[in-house]
């Protein structure tokens, strides 16, 4: 809006219609903030009730017997499972998504790039339960061979030990999550790559840079913060994903040294799986774990948004 429009707006601001409309729109904005605050407050209240009755240590107990009397539960296993599966997902998805984004923006013939980026956007819309169904019924039976192989060469590390049971493990969950967050990371990264000034890329070319050198000299440094924030958006998704984990993982309240063997649990999966059997105490306990998940995603997403905002300011002043 320009100055003149603002002044004109001030002149008409006295009309009742204007007052009502601006109050309505302002009210909606405030309602959004209230909802955010209410989420935090209500979860915190129930969580406080649950934690005060917890006979175990909420942070370190390796158990989830919230319906027992006295209730004993802790989030150690959930935190471990959530973080480990998300880290695996990130380790796979970030480099691959960067590669795909480069493919779309700099390598693919134009038609292929257009079709493929359209496809990527469509895939971002596939519901997570369908990834879960596919993961459980298609992916899990096919991972065994790969895990046997990993066990053969890297089994001695302990992390890659595998006993041949169905591969409903944190590793499989991580791989599935990676597939699920590929589209979102790819589409954000692709946009950032496309924004790299053409003139800089041409300058690099004119200095006698190969295609990869152009990317390394201009595209990647320009896009670094964009890649980071895209990754964190993906991480936020992975941390909070429920259904794909609930269908694939064979849950257990243990921290298993091997990532390939069944077991483990995540926040979201635990809530979905335990909910139907939970009594009122059990629900409060699940809400308490949900609050931790909420704070975790808040942290990750907030950081991602701050990075994006900073980047906007930076490129704004530079231009």
């Amino acid at each position, binding site marked *: *809006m320009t100055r003149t*429009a603002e002044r*004109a*707006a001030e002149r*008409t*601001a006295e*009309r009742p*219609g*204007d007052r*009502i409309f*601006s109050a309505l*729109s*302002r009210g*909606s*904005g*405030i309602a*959004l903030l209230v*909802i955010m605050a*209410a989420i935090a407050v*209500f*979860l915190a209240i129930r969580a406080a009730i649950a934690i005060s009755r917890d006979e175990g240590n909420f942070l370190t107990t390796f158990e989830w017997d919230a319906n027992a009397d006295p209730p004993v539960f802790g989030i150690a296993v959930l935190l471990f499972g959530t973080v480990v599966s998300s880290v695996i997902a990130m380790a796979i998805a970030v*480099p*691959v998504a960067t*590669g795909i984004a480069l493919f779309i923006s700099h*390598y693919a013939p134009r038609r292929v790039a257009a079709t*493929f980026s359209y496809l990527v956007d469509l895939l971002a*819309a*596939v*519901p997570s*339960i*369908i*990834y879960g*169904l*596919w993961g459980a019924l*298609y992916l899990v039976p096919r991972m065994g*061979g*790969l895990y046997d192989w990993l066990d053969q060469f890297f089994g001695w590390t302990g992390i890659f030990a595998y006993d041949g049971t169905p591969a409903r493990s944190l590793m499989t969950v991580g791989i599935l999550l990676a597939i699920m967050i*590929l589209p979102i990371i*790819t589409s954000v990264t692709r946009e950032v790559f496309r924004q790299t000034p053409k003139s800089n890329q041409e300058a690099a070319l004119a200095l*006698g840079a*190969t*295609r*990869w050198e152009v990317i390394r000299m201009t595209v990647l440094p320009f896009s670094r913060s964009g890649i980071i924030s895209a990754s964190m958006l993906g991480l936020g998704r992975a941390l*909070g*994903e*429920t*259904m794909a984990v609930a*269908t694939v993982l064979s849950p257990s309240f243990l921290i298993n040294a091997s990532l390939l063997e069944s077991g483990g649990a995540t926040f979201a999966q635990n*809530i*979905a799986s335990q*909910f139907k059997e939970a009594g009122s105490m059990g*629900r409060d306990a*699940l809400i308490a774990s949900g609050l931790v998940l*909420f704070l975790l995603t*808040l942290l*990750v*997403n*907030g950081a*991602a*948004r701050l990075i994006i905002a900073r980047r906007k300011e930076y490129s704004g002043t530079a231009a």
Partner: protein
Amino acid sequence: MSEQHLDTTERGTAVPLATLRPPRLPRWAPGALLVGSVAFAVVVGVVGRLHSHLQWGLIAAVVFVAATFGLAWRVEGRRHAVDRLASLLVWACFLVALLPLASLLYETVRRGVPHVDWYFLTHSMNGVLSWQAGGGIYHALLGTVEQVAIASVIAIPIGLLTAVYLVEYGRGRLAKAITFFVDVMTGIPSIVAGLFILSLWIMMLDFGYSGFAGAMALSILMMPIVVRSTEEMLKLVPAELREASLALGVPKWRTILRVVLPTAIGGIATGVMLALARIAGETAPIILLVFGTNMINGNVFEGAQSSLPLYVYEQWSFGTEAAYDRAWAAALVLIAFVMILNLAARAVARWKAPKASR
């Protein structure tokens, strides 16, 4: 010109003069290397009795990349070798990503199509045991449509008005706070939204499970998407349009309703439809709030309902062949539902786009 030579006498610095024709790999080299690598992998696979063709492919890929890189390094030098390696890896990323995604769609279609028919779409699961064939998704379809509709009724007005506030009125701290929290809200896990409604609506206010409770959680997930996309669209409306209308003495609120929103309506509709597609596939809050049932319940406000994603989850958890068939079939219907919404959204965007940009 054949060799690189250092020309230090004339210019005093040691910048090597490039020749225009550095040694390059012949054009047929990559093809030959690819054939060679595949042949190598086949030999290793047969001799080493590797059963998984995935392993064959992996070996071929690794050999191909390594051979190309090594050969290019020797013939063309480091820079071109690295360039070739980067190209190969980027293409590899593309192929690696394509495999699971293609497989997901293929499996869903292959296993879903045989079981989707008119009976499946028009009957519920009432009285069908998990191991029995038959039954359908009518109750789930009905639940999804009702819940999504209610969620939109809540989320769209709030989302639209918030976006209008941010673009037309918002200044200062409140607007900044709203912008930030809308972004953060986009990242709320759906199960957390479900837990919030659970603690407020069901545990504190003591209402029962209902489609409405689920719809409230879905609306929380939908709001930020609507705000974001609407905001982007409103920002594209040129300021001259607003000024022209205001200069005619039209009040601001009428300007927004009559000039600004209609100009951006195509983009807004696209954003809303994408948001609908997103929440139609949500399962987690439905588990907590709608609970699920096998019977047809058309009343969103009273009693448990079902929904398509929840149906898929339930059928999967029964673990029988008949239930798996139903799960795939329902998954196919769900994907079709979401894809149609998506394609329609893009069609609207394309149809409206040229006018907006003019």
